[in-house]
């Protein structure tokens, strides 16, 4: 096996199809970032022409503030898990994935609760449409990240990942960090910027 690779004096990479998935994930993140940029462009564009934006004053930070901390800490736990498998520590991978999943699920639950407390709906005004669409699309990305986490966890429990072979874990982690980073931008735009005015 891999004698041709030896003749060319380069490594044989049986998992390269997964490793080049890194390129795919980076570009997926690039295009998804653009997606959120256009959502926020729409938010600021309509806001720039509105007499009052948001119409009822800035949204409360009571839930969203702690929720942000929870989501950001889930990036740390996932980083810890990925570092674990990079050293071959199966238990650390599994535990880290599990904690990350729980933190992400709590984020979504709190977000759903915050939605239920809103006095407006997507049908009330353009602001309501944008608030729910932007946070809704972000929430959908968190759910996608949770599903990825779930699948990767199942594979982790079945022992499919090793120290040298865990590109899927790294890709799923990259996606999760991206979802967290987007939340920082969404949170800043929807919750913090209105307070500056």
């Amino acid at each position, binding site marked *: 096996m891999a004698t041709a690779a030896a*003749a060319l004096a380069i490594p044989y990479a049986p998992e390269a199809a997964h490793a080049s998935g890194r390129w795919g994930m980076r570009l*997926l993140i690039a*295009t998804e970032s653009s*997606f959120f*940029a256009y959502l926020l*462009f*729409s938010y600021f564009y309509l806001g720039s022409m509105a007499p009052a934006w948001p119409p009822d004053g800035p949204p409360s930070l009571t839930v969203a503030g702690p929720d942000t901390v929870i989501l950001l800490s889930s990036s740390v736990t996932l980083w810890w898990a990925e570092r674990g498998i990079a050293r071959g520590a199966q238990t650390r991978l599994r535990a880290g994935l599990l904690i990350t999943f729980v933190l992400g699920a709590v984020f979504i639950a709190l977000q759903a609760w915050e939605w239920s407390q809103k006095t407006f709906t997507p049908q009330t005004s*353009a602001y309501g449409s944008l608030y729910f669409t932007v946070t809704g699309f972000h929430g959908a990305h968190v759910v996608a990240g949770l599903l990825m986490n779930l699948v990767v966890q199942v594979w982790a429990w079945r022992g*499919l990942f090793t120290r040298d*072979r865990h590109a899927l874990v790294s890709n799923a982690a990259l996606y999760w960090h991206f979802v967290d980073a987007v939340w920082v931008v969404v949170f800043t735009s929807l919750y913090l910027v209105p307070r500056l005015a």
Partner: protein
Amino acid sequence: MTPSGSTSPAATAVSSQLSRARLAEIWETPADLRGILSSVDHKTIGKRYLVTAFVFFILGGLEAVVMRAQLVHGDMHLLTPEAYNQLFTMHGVTMIFLFASPVLSGFSNYLWPLMIGSRDMAFPRVNALSYWTFLLAGIFLYSSFLVGQAPDGGWFGYAPMTQRAYSPGLNIDFYALGLIYLGISTTVGAVNFIATFFTLRAPGMSLDRVPVILWGTLTVSFLIVFFIPALTVASTFLYLDRNVGTHFFDAANGGHPLLWQHLFWIFGHPWVYIVVLPAMGLASDIIPTFCRRPLAGYTFVALATIATGIVGSGVWLHHMFATGLPPLAMSFFSGASMTIAIPSGVSVAAWLATIWYGRPVFKVPFLFMIGFIILFVIGGVNGVMTAPVPFDWQLTDTYFVVAHLHYVLLGINVFPVFGALYYWMPKMSGRMMSERIGRWVFWLMFAGMNLAFFPMHITGMLGMARRVYTYPSGMGWDAANLVTTVGAVVFAAGVLLFLVDLVRSLRVGPLAGDNPWDAPTLEWSTTSPPPPYNFAVLPTVRSRYPLWEDRIPEGARSIVGRGPVLDDGRETIGTSPLDADPVAVLHMPPDSSWPLLLALALTVVFYALLAVSWLWTGVGALLVFICLVGWLTPSRPSRGAGED
């Protein structure tokens, strides 16, 4: 593996035969139904893209011919206004989204691995997904005709006309969802091109040695990654406004119709470059072959391609000069729009210099290139004419704009594409097309195109508005419209003759051999049609034109057809992004049914959304999830993997 360097020539020949048989066994897709539905061969996918895009081209062309029959003179009532609206909308949507871009994806899919000396694209299964979603999104859009409710708001579907109150049918829902779906296809395709460009170029094919089509497709792939989401956001808002009761484009409740126009044109103008830059790349690769010399100013052409992509992403406002924007914004975008003439001029100068200093051989593909350059200049000039704001105000929404956009799209997309079909068809089919019929095809298309669209400059300046199903006789527009219709028929006759030539060539065309045009790039070093594995031995490249090196007395020598054979499974060589130094032997995935299944699951989602059925949308999403898991499930770690 065949260490051909260390054995006698005779032994090498024998082992090379064995290697080819072995490679064919590894890479060949079985010809049964399962094989057809699961193939990930970039050549198969490329050909499917070309054929499917061509079918849409013919559908869009028929729509145009029917419209021209309606407009042949004033006060005609062949079509109702409603039918006319659907026809011009679907003509635009078809030509722009289902032909102009996918046909170039077809060429790029087919040619890229052959041109860069690889065995497939970086993500072969994603490539299959890109094709299936393109096909199914096209079918989704066209299924609107079955219920008599095809999109009817123009290809740019302006709000508020597209809001539920003014457009109660399913027409615009088909449009919004179809464009979102098609965006998925385009995006995954673009991701694949970018990854392929940066990982799979043959050893030694550094950035200054790639064929120009790669620069074109790479540039537009980045445009797609960054700008398709604007269309996706716009179409999502449109769908939500129509079906959920949101207010994005509803001025009465804090929304704004211009939000649609901004989002649409942020995407829409880069899209113009998406459908022309790869075609310009095709021209830059074809012209040198028929001028018998390298392309003049290669570096400038490559940089002009990228520059056009960058400047082209900042000119969208010029589609909105008539919407009451601040003068400063209009001046800026007007200036930026005129700037685009510079990189375009650089490319034209490079082609003309190549012809001027070369020894042109006037074969059919080259005729199409000449036609392309002429039409490009006309389409560029009448485009720059509309860049200044006052002139744009006078002409916007008239036939002058129709003339401009058809000179651009036919001139810079259709003509290079037909030239490229004549040029690469011998590689794809192994048979030559007819030189004699080809000349007729060219002259019919070229004459038809100018007859049809040049008079539109005049009818436009005389004030004839586009997108109106008829016009009163006696406005002085009748003669020009008659000429336009005649031109459309002549053009259609050219396309028909092309199809005749194609069928004839596939059946009885003379065999082409490996390199019928004596062309310089790597795809011509393998057989016609190429074997499933493309190259038995992957080449090592030392210059821009590897197959012309023997005519240059001194200089670099590429290595084609000698060296180790990679035949321990589906393998190709991965190289570094800039210098293309070999870094690893890559293992490529086998044929797979997951791409088709995933595309079908997505189709369930989009039809469910069309019916506003959240239950079925959920079912479809679940199917999508299952397909993704099935696709990505890793095999158990094999013993020894990661240890060599």
